[in-house]
């Protein structure tokens, strides 16, 4: 319980600071919006071709926008020196990881909640599929933010830190992105849940395995 309270305090601090400036939300939202608009015009999407391409476009928008937030997550702490204050706290460092991860996932989630309805209008998608797509987005975001928070902490001590995070994160996140795209496509095509079982398993399995691994290794990653 105490562990969760500490993690909650870290998440509250990050979200409170973000609420005050809305700096990262604005950047991530505008970036994701631009991605779907540019793809819409660049590929001249018609209703029949949209179904095939939209899942990929959506996840490009989500993951690249998420990368912006993840990149700043530890860089801001490091640059203003508050990372030392955080590490000085007498808490299990995996509580710091959990708090930062929850804040990153929440920020990505809010951006996605704004982007999804816009995409439905722009690409003329069936609104009935929205609840299931929200579930896929939630699971995908959790896994992406989970690994991303760990790699963000790892990259912050390197010289080319802004470039390092995507180079570390995207190769590891490939199974998650494939599963999320396949599930999004299947739901938009109206496939039954049973037909998508192996992609659900891959997505949930990725979340469980990588969140556990990140939890266990964060202490070593953040150590000087």
């Amino acid at each position: 319980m105490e562990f969760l309270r500490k993690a909650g305090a870290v998440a509250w601090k990050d979200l409170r600071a973000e609420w005050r400036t809305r700096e990262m939300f604005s950047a991530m939202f505008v970036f994701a919006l631009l991605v779907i608009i540019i793809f819409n015009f660049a590929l001249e999407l018609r209703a029949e071709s949209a179904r095939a391409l939209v899942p990929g476009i959506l996840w490009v928008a989500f993951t690249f926008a998420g990368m912006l937030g993840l990149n700043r997550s530890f860089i801001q702490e490091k640059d203003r020196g508050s990372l030392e204050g955080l590490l000085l706290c007498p808490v299990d460092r995996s509580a710091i990881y959990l708090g930062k991860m929850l804040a990153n996932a929440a920020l990505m989630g809010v951006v996605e909640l704004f982007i999804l309805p816009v995409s439905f209008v722009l690409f003329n998608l069936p609104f009935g599929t929205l609840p299931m797509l929200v579930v896929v987005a939630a699971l995908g975001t959790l896994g992406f933010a989970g690994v991303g928070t760990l790699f963000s902490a790892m990259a912050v001590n390197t010289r080319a830190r802004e470039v390092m995070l995507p180079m570390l994160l995207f190769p590891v996140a490939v199974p998650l992105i494939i599963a999320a795209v396949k599930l999004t496509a299947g739901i938009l095509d109206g496939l039954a849940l049973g037909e998508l079982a192996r992609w659900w398993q891959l997505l949930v399995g990725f979340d469980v395995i990588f969140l556990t691994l990140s939890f266990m290794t964060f202490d070593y990653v953040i150590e000087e």
Partner: protein
Amino acid sequence: MIQVRGLTKTFGPKKVLRGIDLDVGEGEFLTLVGPNGAGKTTFLRILATLSRPTSGQATVGGVSIDQHPAQARRKIGLVSHRTLLYDDLTAVENLQFYGRMYDVTGLAARIEDALRQVDLYFRRHDPVRTYSRGMQQRLSIARAILHDPQVMLMDEPYTGLDQQATAMLRRVLGTLAASGRTVVMTTHDLELGLEVADRVAILSGGKIGFQSPAKDLDVQQFRRIYAEQAG
């Protein structure tokens, strides 16, 4: 209160600390001076558990910083030239966050008390980014004393402060010393370091080259010894 034995630290081929032995008693104020690169900051970072020693041992309040770092952290308050604060949060929000992380009981009262001690209660609801450098440093002290630590580690706390802010910080330091806390402070200001301390030590070439009770030295003597030690 602080015991250090044979402490070394190397970064790659570079030996920054070469076997430090040091004892700081309860309620004692130790000023540690030394030239740039002498290892002062590295030494304080190790004591604060932010960096691991290559070899040697250190205890804070009888707790090994290597074996029980989280327990040791509860006994330590760190003030450095960086404030460790969140610019977009207000003073109260910053202290609320740190108070929760340190399990401070009666947090609202502790926050009010800490802010009054550093004369920032009247600006408590303003974001930290609107504060002057001196005010941020005072808030940094409030953050460090919030959990009532037995040991204060202060790494060049006067860096970047104007005269007025320096005078204010000097007053706050005096209060800290009077409260019976053990303080280890690094500084380049020999006069100020000698004035506030019970004991002074010179760190040079990764070793404690000289230490003496502050009352046995005057500023001129201290400057001469420092020049000899620092080369």
